C-alpha cells in the first residue's frame, strides 16, 4: 500500500482536522476522541505494524496547548505516516495505545514524565526518567532550563543550576577568561 493510499483510507474513515503534506511526509491531525480508533485502524487495516516513536509538543501559549505525535511505520510497505492530536491543558489526558503497540508503554511514560500528559488505560503509568515524586514536568516550555529545587528525602533532591544569565558559550581570543567565557552572549556579538 502506498502512503497516499493509506492516508486517503484514513481520511475516508475518520474526520481529519488537518492534513499537512511536506517533503513527501503526510501528517494527519485528528480530534482527541478519534485518535485511538484511528491508530487501531491504521494498525489492523493499513498494516502500520510498527510505532517508531510517540512524542509530544508543548505549544506554550496556544490552546489546546499540547500535541501528542504518533509516528507510524509499516515494515511491509515501508511507508511512514504521522498522526497528531491536540490535548488541552485543562484536561491533560490522552488515550493509551500501549495495547496496540507494546513500545508505546515506555514512550507514553516518557511523555507523562516530561510533559505531564496522562494516558488513560496505560498499564503502568509511572515516571520513566525523573524519579517518582519529582514535582515538575521539565520539558514544558515554562520550566526553566536551570531547574527548580525539590526534595524527596532518601530518594533524590534537585537544585538550581548556575546559568548566570544564559547558556554557556565561549569565543577563542587572547582576552581575560571573563571576556572569553561570559555566561550570556547576544547573537550580534558572535
Amino acid at each position, binding site marked *: 500500500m502506498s502512503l497516499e493510499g493509506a492516508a486517503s483510507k484514513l481520511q475516508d474513515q475518520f474526520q481529519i482536522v488537518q492534513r499537512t503534506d511536506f517533503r513527501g511526509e503526510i501528517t494527519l491531525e485528528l480530534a482527541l476522541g478519534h485518535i485511538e480508533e484511528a491508530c487501531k485502524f491504521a494498525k489492523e487495516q493499513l498494516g502500520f505494524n510498527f510505532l517508531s516513536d510517540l512524542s509530544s509538543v508543548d505549544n506554550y501559549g496556544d490552546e489546546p496547548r499540547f500535541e501528542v505525535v504518533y509516528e507510524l511505520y509499516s515494515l511491509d510497505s515501508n511507508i511512514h505516516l504521522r498522526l497528531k492530536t491536540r490535548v488541552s491543558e485543562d484536561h491533560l489526558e490522552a488515550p493509551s495505545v500501549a495495547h496496540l503497540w507494546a513500545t508505546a508503554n515506555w514512550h507514553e511514560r516518557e511523555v507523562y514524565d516530561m510533559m505531564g500528559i496522562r494516558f488513560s488505560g496505560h498499564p503502568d503509568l509511572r515516571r520513566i526518567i525523573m*524519579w517518582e515524586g519529582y514535582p*515538575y514536568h521539565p520539558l514544558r516550555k515554562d520550566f*526553566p532550563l536551570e531547574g527548580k529545587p525539590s526534595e524527596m528525602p532518601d530518594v533524590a533532591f534537585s*537544585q538550581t*543550576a*548556575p546559568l548566570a544569565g544564559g547558556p554557556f558559550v565561549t569565543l577563542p581570543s587572547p582576552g581575560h577568561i571573563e571576556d572569553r567565557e561570559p555566561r550570556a552572549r547576544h547573537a550580534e556579538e558572535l
Partner: protein
Amino acid sequence: MVTTAPAAYDSKVEGNIIFSRLDACINWMRKNSLWPMPMGLACCAIEMMAAACARYDIARFGAEVMRFSPRQSDVMIVAGTVTYKMALAVKRIYDQMPEPKWVIAMGACASSGGMYRSYAVLQGIDHLLPVDVYISGCPPRPEALLEGLMKLQRKIELEKSLTDQKKELLEVYS
C-alpha cells in the same frame, strides 16, 4: 627515609632493620595499594577502563584492583555525569566505604556538572562528597587519570595518618 645502616643496639640483626616513621610506612602502604571503587556513570568510565588495560596499566600504581564492592575499596573514582537521580546512590555507596577513603572526581561532569547546566544534573560531586583530586577533561585521557592518581598518592604521603586517624591507638600506647 629508608636506610640499611647497621642497627647499633643488636648486632645479630645488623643490616635487616629499616628505620622510618610509622606515618611514612602507613602512607607508603596505603598509597601503593589504592583499591578503586569504579563509580562509572558515563563516557569517563570508558577511559577509566582503558587506564586499567594493558596499554596504560593502572596496576603500575597499585590501583588495578577495581572493587565493585564499596566495602573493599579505598578510593572512589567518580567517572561521569552525576544526575540528581543517581546522586544519593553515589553518596550511599561512598558511605559504605571503610575509612580511610578518598574521592577522585574524574572529568568535567563529576567536577562541576560539565556541559550539563541543566535541571537533571548535580553540579559537581563535591556538593555531596569530599573530593581529593579533580581531573579536567571531557573525558580525560587515561594519562590524566594516572596523573590524578599520582597526585592523590602525593597527597596521601603527606597525611598524618597516626596522629589524625589513630588517636585512640596512640592514647592506649602512650
